[in-house]
């Protein structure tokens, strides 16, 4: 049973009526025509709602608790996966996971944020908020990939890097800066896919890639809409306005030259059909990897640098 978002209330009501009718049907009354009629109406409403989501509604979809996460993509996307762990200095951060994988036979190093999907796992993965050791693990895995000519694929899904005393103590800012630097230095292809939330420096540290993909309803921003609203409007209640003003959707970011490809989601968002979302992402990643295959290390670096030098140019 899908949990509905606030703006999906009319759809939820229709779905509830369909469910009611189905229950009544068990008592022997024929309601097939009614159910079919309501289902058509509900599908139409869902399609129309998702065709014109506001930036704030997209933020909610991107954060939907049932939206697939790193572990679901890893399980569904790759033929094989071998997790690798640790930054060799302090700890193994569970908010940023990674390992070697095969995507339709092709070797990749996959790295991404994992938010967790119930209370226990959310705590374990620190809600996808990486700590310095997580970014340092990412650096280590990127270097490993670079050494052996393995393309890097990152799955970005974080509200931001963790703000905490110990994280600061161990150099959160330095770890993020070095991770961004490592992305830009890679002599292998790098593709970043924002699968949910791309939150600020904690996202960019894994996303300074040759090609940046975004799911249709993913968002990517310099600060959360709530954070922006509480600073500029002095109240987090203005989050919807902030989301609008900041331009955080995939279409906005494609126009601004940040996002290179929008990955279509199943009707009603990735959480309504995770398997279809995984296939959609797999196709996009494959196409992008094909596009970068055969380029020299220097050319890959040159293209990547050029992308970030030219963003925002007049």
């Amino acid at each position: 049973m899908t949990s509905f978002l606030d703006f999906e209330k009319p759809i939820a009501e229709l779905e509830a009526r369909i469910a009611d009718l189905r229950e009544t049907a068990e008592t022997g009354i024929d309601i097939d025509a009614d159910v079919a009629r309501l289902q058509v109406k509900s599908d139409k409403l869902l399609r129309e709602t998702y065709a014109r989501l506001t930036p704030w509604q997209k933020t909610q979809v991107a954060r939907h608790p049932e939206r697939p996460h790193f572990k679901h993509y890893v399980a569904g996307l790759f033929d094989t996966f071998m997790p690798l762990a640790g930054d060799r200095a302090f700890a193994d951060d569970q908010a940023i996971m990674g390992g070697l994988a095969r995507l339709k036979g092709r070797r990749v190093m996959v790295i991404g944020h994992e938010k967790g999907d119930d209370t226990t796992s959310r705590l374990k993965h620190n809600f996808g908020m990486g700590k310095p050791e997580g970014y340092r693990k990412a650096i280590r895995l990127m270097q490993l990939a670079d050494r052996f000519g393995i393309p890097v694929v990152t799955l970005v899904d974080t509200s931001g890097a963790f703000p905490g005393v110990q994280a600061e103590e161990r150099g959160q800012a330095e770890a993020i800066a070095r991770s961004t630097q490592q992305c830009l230095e890679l002599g292998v292809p790098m593709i970043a896919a924002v699968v949910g939330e791309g939150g600020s420096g904690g996202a960019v540290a894994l996303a300074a890639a040759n090609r940046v993909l975004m799911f249709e309803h993913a968002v990517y921003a310099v600060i959360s809409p709530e954070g922006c609203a509480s600073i500029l409007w002095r109240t987090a209640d203005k989050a919807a306005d902030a989301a609008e003003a900041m331009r955080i959707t995939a279409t906005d970011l494609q126009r601004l030259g940040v996002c290179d490809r929008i990955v279509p989601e199943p009707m009603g968002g990735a959480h309504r059909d995770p398997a279809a979302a995984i296939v959609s992402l797999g196709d996009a990643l494959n196409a992008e990897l094909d596009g970068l295959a055969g380029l020299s290390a220097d050319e890959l670096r040159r293209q990547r640098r050029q992308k970030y030098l030219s963003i925002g140019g007049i």
Partner: protein
Amino acid sequence: MSWLTRVRNAIPFIAKRETPDNLWHKCKSCGQMIFMKEFEDNLSVCPKCDHHERIGPNARFNQILDEGSWRTLAIPRVADDPLKFRDSKRYVDRIKAARATTGETDALMNASGTIQGHRAVVGVQDFAFMGGSMGLGVGAAFLEGVRTAIAERAPYIIFTAAGGARMQEGILSLMQMPKTTVAIAELHDAGLPYIVVMTDPTTGGVTASYAMLGDVQLAEPNALIGFAGQRVIESTIREKLPEGFQRAEYLLDHGMLDMVTHRKALPETLGTLIGYLCEARVNA
């Protein structure tokens, strides 16, 4: 303006006060009143408590670069307000106001000159210009500073001061993190040093990009340096922050800096450092 001043000024035969408003400086840290001239001669450092007051690009260039050796660099033009951003005020109006108060184009200015006889290009971020925030203007100025340094075969020295990224430029401000990182790579490709001097305050996306990538990292005493804001951390962990948290000395203790340097010692320290790093290679 108080009602008394208003009334006084309106009466033509009462002579206006001759003394300028800024004859005295009140130290923001210890509250001591200091004669402005004495304060400025002391490099805007409180002679009583050693508090390093925030200073802008021109004061900094004057303090760091050899007298008569330097010129400021033109700031490349970027799109003002690329997102047509508006909160309680329009972003274009905020930029206009910042330009009017500071007399600068954006929050980062560069100058080229010598430090104790060594060629250097120096960038200074101005906290007075929209909190020193990093947007297209800062990114473009940073790249310009680096490229001038490459052309002049000189190191690039950046004095950071910023609350973080400029929210009014949305994702484009975030993209200045990789952009400035690419600039640093260009400098390194050219075999030139990149030196960071962190000043109060340096936080957010600026710390998490070019401020932490120096070949050598310096900071002024007691400068606030961090990734996350203190209020954000407090509300996350729900406890008081430790004494001296996110101050320059704390970062030195935790291995994030090479040294904390008093403003008076900066020209000599930077000169010596450039001397070490830029000497012609013997076995290259």
